[in-house]
Structures are given as C-alpha cells and as structure tokens.
C-alpha cells in the first residue's frame, strides 16, 4: 500500500473544490439541454411557468457554483435538480394538454347532446306539422267528397224531377193532341213541339185567327198557365207558293197573331218568342198538295228546361 487512502479521499475533495468534476460537467450539460428543450416549448411556457422557473433557478445556481469553483458535488446536485425540474415542466405541460382535451371532449359531448335535442325537437315539430297538414287535407277531401255526393244527389233529384216533369208534360201534350184533330205533339232535340195546321187557325192567305181556333188557343193558354216556368217559341211557316217576301211576312204575322191571342188569355208576353220563317224548313215536299198542306203550319216549341 503505497498511498494512504485517507489522503486520496482528501486530495479528491480538494480537487473537486478547484475544478468541476467530469460527472458534474456532464450533469450540467444534460441539465442545460433539458432546460433548453423545456424553455423552447411554447406549451411549457404557457401552462407550466412555475415548474420552468424552478428548473431555471436550479440551473442558474449550478452555473454560478461552477464559476465560483464551489464543490463539484453541489454543482452536480443543482444541475440534477434543474434537469429533473425541466422534465417535470415538460410533463406538466403534457398533463395540462390532456386536461384541456378532456374538457374539450366534455364540451363537445354537451354540444352534441344539445344539437341532438334540438334536432329531435325540430323533427317532432315537423312531424306534428305534417300530421296537421294531413289532417287538413283529409278534412278537405272529406268535405269535397261530401259536396260531390250532395251535388250528385241534387243532380239525381233534379234529373228525376225533370224526367217526371217531362213525362207529365208529354202526357199533357198527348192529351192536347188527342183533343184537337189538327194538332200533333212530337218530342225532338229542341224539346216538345206542337204542330198546328194553318187550316185550324187561319183562312188561306190571311193572318186573322178563325173562331174555330179558339178552343186550341184556350187549351194552349191553359197548358202555359199550368207550366209557368216554360217559355215557348211560336214559329210560323208557309209552303213555297208565292213570293218569298210575302210568305215571310205572312208567316211572321201569323206567329204574332198566335202570340197576341195567348197574351190576351193572360200569358206573359216575355214568355213568348214569335217568329216567321216563310217557306224555310219545309217538313214535306212542296211538289204535292198534301206536302204543301203539311208545310203550312205553326210550331209551338216548348222550352225543354
């Protein structure tokens, strides 16, 4: 044993007081690097400033001690604290980030729930609106169907009435026909038409009603009185013998004479339209005496409505 061990220990202690040991130097470098990393991170600056400051304090102590030649043990110790605190600062920033993300997730869930509730409420409102709309449409359709049914029923009743009225009218006219030899009742597209031969009403070439026509006119007036809703048209026709102008004039005068006779029997003149057509619209050939006789006529057209 060449050296006293105590002496060796003491020598190393003295040396450490004068020059920084390699371990302390290495620890100091590691502390500087760790501190730089932490200090350069904006997240650390923002969310772990206290931790960063305590790392900085320890590093500054270590640097100062190293410069003043204080024991390496103390330099190394403060550098170690600086390195650990720099790590703590970095982790603390990570913790704050995670906490923020937890809060953000909670906020996001709250927002999603609010949105979902709002969507559900909107859907419910829309459903209610649709139901209301459908109910309205159904009600409208029901009313329309009712109106249509009522219309159809009304039309059916009207039609029935009309049919009954037409049947009654026909029966009445047939009765008139049977009473007067020179009158014919006929149902046509224009309604019922009573055809009276001129011979029944007028003398040849004249437009004055014969006394023998009175019965026919009485019957006609009675008929019109019985059916106050029905208007009539009195249409005079001639055969083709003689001038057209004369025949036209004659047919008009005869139609007017019949109208006047009916008005005289109490029928409103506004219900009666009297016209002459001369030889137009023949119903038979003008080449035979029988045909000409048929063409000389007065037609009473009974308004079908």
């Amino acid at each position, binding site marked *: 044993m060449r050296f006293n061990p105590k002496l060796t220990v*003491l020598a190393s202690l003295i040396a450490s007081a004068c020059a920084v040991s390699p371990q302390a130097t290495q620890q100091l470098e590691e502390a500087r690097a760790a501190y730089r990393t932490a200090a350069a991170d904006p997240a650390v600056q923002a969310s772990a400033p206290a931790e960063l400051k305590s790392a900085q304090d320890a590093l500054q102590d270590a640097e100062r001690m190293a410069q003043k030649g204080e024991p390496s043990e103390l330099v190394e*110790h403060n550098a170690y*604290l600086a390195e650990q605190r720099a790590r703590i600062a970095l982790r603390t920033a990570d*913790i704050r980030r995670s906490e923020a993300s*937890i809060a953000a997730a*909670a906020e*996001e869930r709250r927002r*999603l*729930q609010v949105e979902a509730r709002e969507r559900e409420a909107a859907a419910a409102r829309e459903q209610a609106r649709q139901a209301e709309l459908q109910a309205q449409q159904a009600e409208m359709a029901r009313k329309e169907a009712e109106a249509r049914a009522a219309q159809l029923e009304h039309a059916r009743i009207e039609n029935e009435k009309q049919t009954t009225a037409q049947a009654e009218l026909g029966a009445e006219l047939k009765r008139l026909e049977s009473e007067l030899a020179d009158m014919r009742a006929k149902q046509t597209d224009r309604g019922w038409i009573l055809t009276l031969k001129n011979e029944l009403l007028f003398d040849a070439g004249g437009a004055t009603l014969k006394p023998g026509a009175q019965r026919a006119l009485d019957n006609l007036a009675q008929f019109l009185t019985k059916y106050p809703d029905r208007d009539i048209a009195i249409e005079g026709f001639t055969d083709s013998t003689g001038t057209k102008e004369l025949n036209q004039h004659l047919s008009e005068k005869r139609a007017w004479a019949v109208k006047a006779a009916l008005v005289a029997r109490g029928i409103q003149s506004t219900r009666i339209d009297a016209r002459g057509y001369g030889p137009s619209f023949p119903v038979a050939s003008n080449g035979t005496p029988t045909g000409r006789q048929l063409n000389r006529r007065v037609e009473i057209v009974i308004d079908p409505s």
Partner: protein
Amino acid sequence: MLVPLAALALGACATTDAPEREMGAARAMVSQARPVAAQNAPQELAQAQQKLARAEAAMQRGHHEHARILAEQAEADAKLAWTVAENVRVQRSAAEAQDGTRALREEIERNAQ
C-alpha cells in the same frame, strides 16, 4: 498539513443544521407519488424511494449536508414520478373522453337515420 484539511472537510458536516425541512418535503412528495406512480412510473418512484432511504440513513449518521442533497433529489424524483404517472392517467382519461364523444356522435347519427 493533513489535519487542518481533514478538520475542514469534517467541519462542513458538523456545522450544518439537520435538513428537517428538506426531509419533510421529500417524505411528503414520496407519499403523494406512491399510490399513482407505483403502477405508471415504477422506475422513477423506486429511484425517489431509494434516495429518500439514503437520506434517512445519512441523517442517522449525522451527515446532514449529504442528507439534504439526497432529500432534495428524492423530492424532485418523486415529483417527476408523480408527474409521469399523472400524465399517463390523464392521457388515458383524454382517450376515454374522446372515445365517449365518438360513441355519442355515432349513437346520435344512428338515431337520426
């Protein structure tokens, strides 16, 4: 020559007060870190506990300066252990929170269809 040097070196220990404050802080920090760090930062916790034990031993021997240094390091190690463990825990919670948000969004989308 040797005697005054030895006296100086030993005197450094003898004149320092017992680092009660540092010891207390180290013990408290190790206690705080232990429940969370045992699972998520076992290495960092072991280092802190080891240094605290050495600090306690140094106190027993009356090596106050050495005990102070070990106690300060034990406190820093324990705080790092706690921070590492807490970071693991919080990251897990964040992932769960995000999963929860995703699940809720999917559920809402399913219900909306």
